[in-house]
């Protein structure tokens, strides 16, 4: 009998506020250690937290985007534990009453199916600092610049049944926080990170014991860690063992998870309401104001792309996977045929970006330049083949579309007389192939087209070449 895998994700999204969640210090990444600190985030005696309203509005935005219940009253609680990079000896978080309640996210799978994943809750909390073990001999350094950075912890229901679904959910959430502009989504810097709860069960049986896997800072690591964990748990269960509830750490270098601490070793965090902060009360006006400011969200954009640009669900899904890509596409598609624009963005552009290992925001070809290139195909100034060469050149060396076409004489040959001369020359030079074609070898047409294009250095209009060849090859001598 098969095993069913059950996965739930806890995502920590660092909210991109200018200042920390409980003080006025900057949240900028990469500053001199401990330079972005004050009595509050250093936990000096007597210092008190004051909630950053911008962080709350960003949490509201996420709640609205996933159709969640927004709690009109939520409570900040203290999570008590000792660690050197946790200066107060407790983390201010939300426990029993989070700001965002039950919501959901729809994910699209590669096979075109869709699935709704429940979101249990999302709550506001502060990040800890960092312990630095390198560069100190027999000592550790503490950098509290990150201490107090606002986080939104988004907890899913255990609704995912494969690593692919987990990755699809995480990608969708990643796209969403970037659409909403509430998180920069930078996974390397840790501003969007994920823990996975994984368990196995026989279909229909109650949930099995889960392991929580920490330290998943890329989509690929999430997938690999879950796959590893499935095999590990399966081995244990099938050899008659049982799973221990524990926290495991994913080691990307060795592609394995290993135990960090068991349930028995887990801290008793002694949560209780933080008496330094009043309950967070949301009124309708505030929620409405955030709602007014929401951008078009991925699902709505995808539907619009299908309708407005006549795209398939798949194409629209790819193009709306990130707000930057969708914005780029819309500039290209403004004035050219939608499907052609989509093919260029999804094919040549994404291919080149992938190969260069860069993101759409850093794309060296501005969207309006790609649009002009596509327009030059549409107005038959150049062929699609030539356009690909020009794109490659602009991508790597820069330059202007029209200037390259003119200076290099790439303008398409559409003069029927000129093309006819080339076609006739090729037919005369290849009597054997002509005979073969006329004997029924239709595939040889491609050979003739290729020869004519070669003779024209790719500039002859392929449609005209095709038409002319069909005409001349049928005419008996």
């Amino acid at each position, binding site marked *: 009998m098969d095993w069913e895998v059950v996965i739930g994700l806890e995502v920590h999204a660092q909210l991109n506020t200018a200042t920390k969640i409980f003080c006025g210090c900057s949240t900028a990444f990469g500053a001199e250690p401990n330079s972005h600190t004050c009595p509050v985030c250093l936990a000096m005696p007597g210092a*008190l937290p004051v909630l950053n309203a911008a962080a709350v509005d960003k949490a509201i935005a996420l709640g609205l985007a996933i159709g969640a219940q927004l709690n009109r009253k939520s409570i900040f609680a203290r999570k008590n534990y000792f660690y050197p990079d946790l200066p107060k000896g407790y983390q201010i978080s939300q426990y029993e009453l989070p700001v965002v309640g039950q919501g959901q996210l729809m994910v699209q799978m590669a096979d075109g199916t869709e699935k709704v994943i429940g979101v249990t809750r999302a709550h506001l909390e502060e990040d800890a600092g960092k312990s630095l073990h390198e560069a100190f001999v027999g000592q550790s350094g503490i950098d509290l610049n990150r201490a107090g950075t606002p986080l939104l912890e988004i907890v899913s229901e255990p609704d995912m049944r494969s690593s692919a679904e987990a990755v699809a959910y995480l990608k969708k959430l990643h796209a969403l926080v970037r659409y909403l502009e509430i998180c920069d989504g930078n996974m390397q810097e840790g501003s969007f990170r994920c823990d996975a709860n994984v368990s196995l069960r026989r279909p229909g049986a109650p949930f099995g014991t889960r392991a929580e896997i920490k330290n998943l800072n890329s989509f690929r690591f999430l997938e690999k860690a879950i796959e590893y964990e499935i095999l590990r748990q399966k081995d244990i269960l099938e050899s008659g063992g049982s799973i221990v509830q524990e926290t495991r750490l994913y080691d990307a270098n060795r592609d394995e998870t290993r135990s960090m601490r068991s349930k028995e070793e887990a801290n008793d965090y002694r949560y209780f309401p933080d008496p330094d902060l009043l309950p967070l009360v949301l009124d309708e006006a505030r929620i409405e104001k955030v709602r007014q400011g929401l951008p078009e969200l991925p699902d709505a954009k995808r539907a619009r792309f299908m309708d407005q640009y006549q795209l398939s669900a798949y194409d629209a899904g790819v193009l709306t996977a990130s707000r930057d890509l969708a914005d780029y596409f819309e500039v290209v598609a403004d004035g050219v045929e939608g499907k052609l624009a989509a093919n260029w963005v999804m094919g040549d552009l994404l291919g080149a970006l992938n190969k260069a290992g860069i993101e759409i925001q850093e794309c060296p070809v501005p969207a309006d330049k790609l649009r002009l290139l596509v327009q030059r195909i549409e107005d038959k100034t150049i062929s699609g083949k030539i356009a690909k060469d020009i794109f490659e050149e602009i991508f790597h060396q820069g330059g202007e579309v029209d200037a390259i076409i003119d200076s290099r004489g790439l303008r398409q040959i559409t003069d029927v007389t000129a093309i006819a001369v080339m076609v006739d020359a090729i037919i005369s030079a290849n009597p054997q192939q002509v005979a073969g074609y006329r004997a029924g070898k239709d595939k040889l047409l491609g050979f003739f087209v290729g020869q004519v294009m070669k003779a024209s250095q790719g500039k002859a209009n392929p449609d005209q070449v095709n038409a002319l060849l069909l005409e001349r090859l049928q005419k008996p001598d």
Partner: protein
Amino acid sequence: MDLHHLSLRQLREGLHNKDFSALELTETLLQRIRALNPQLNAFITVTEAAALESATQADARLAKGEAGALLGLPMAHKDIFCTADLPTTCGSKMLENFVAPYSATVVERLAAAGMVMLGKLNMDEFAMGSSNETSYFGPVRNPWNVDMVPGGSSGGSAAAVAAGLVPVATGTDTGGSIRQPAALCGITGIKPTYGRVSRYGMIAFASSLDQGGPMARSAEDCALLLDAMAAHDPRDSTSHPAAASDFLRGLDRPLQGLRVGVPEEFFGEGLDPEVAAAVQSGIDQLAKQGASIQSIRLPNNPHAVSTYYVLAPAEASSNLSRFDGVRYTHRSQAVENLDDLYRKSRYEGFGAEVRRRILVGTYVLSAGYYDAYYLKAQQVRSLIREDFRRAFAEVDVIVGPTTPSPAFGLGAKNADPISMYLADIYTIAVNLAGIPALSLPCGFTRSGLPIGMQLMGDYFADDLLLNVAHRYQQETDWHLARPTLQAGEA
């Protein structure tokens, strides 16, 4: 002229009449501190240089014609308020060498008003105690009898004010820490409504109960100081938007028609007969001045102490986690590893009472115990609040004893923490409810120890309490009695 016996109003007149300068006043009191502090131990730190500097600045401002009500007047802070670039110990070895990089809002406000801070006052360690004996810097002695405790936790403040080392001082009150020492030292002190006085920079003991307030030799001086202390502070989320008020304006209102409630629960078993008699004569005095007296019930008051000793330690166990040996605190030497660093630094840095409360607080918040202790205590807290709400529908002020007994001997209750906790039996409910309460002198025992009477009011009725106390002090002279102290006695 004995400058050390004058009220703030008299001192201010003296400054404005140029009878003396702020510098002369400061020097006089510093000299008195030098003479008397060795036997009282009221000050942990005397900030002489800084005091002389700010007195000189105050004189310059006075010379320019500035007329601030507190300009040039001396005071001292309980050592729980952070003072930039000066030591702040909170009465603990943990912070023996701590110099705060910033000042509490209260410290900033009084400095901006031109007050001259003479130093930092002794206190029970982290404000946990009712006798000032838990201080790492040694016990404070009661100026009325140096074999007696001054009360706590603001014992240094009470003793310094009573002994004339400063005319006024700040204190803090979590379960009675302003009122109980005020009663035991024969001075006046008010715990304002929760949210009146900013807690920013005031080292937290139990955040939902802590409140700073003034301690002085009269209600009028308390009002003057509270005027400067109370204000909404955006740096304290629990600070009330309407925290500021004019506490002087209504001081003279007559007491005619004042409805006074006397809770039965405050006059039961355990109350010293001399205290009961003195408070009763205080109540009679209020009646004589036009107040109507009626008996009331606060049925949940008997649960206040046990409720408090769940909630306050719970909050404290978390508030004191930041004293971990990692940054600015005492750090144990020769530690093996991180756990060792925490354990040893905290064991060495905290005294026994603080450790006891951290243990209790950790216990009541633990998984499996939270509902039975912390949650239950919060429910009782609501009932206690409800008691007061019902009472204040019928009366304007509730009056009773501040403490069950006068000052007790040094060491008398050290072996029995519960009997020590019961010293706050009448003061704790007020903190649980968040209402204001004031203690003022209402008599003496035969052995010459002061007795305090407590006035409790509804939320934001701080001005009414000051008004009642002031009118009482217009007609009585208990607050004018001064202890006899000889310099050099130890």
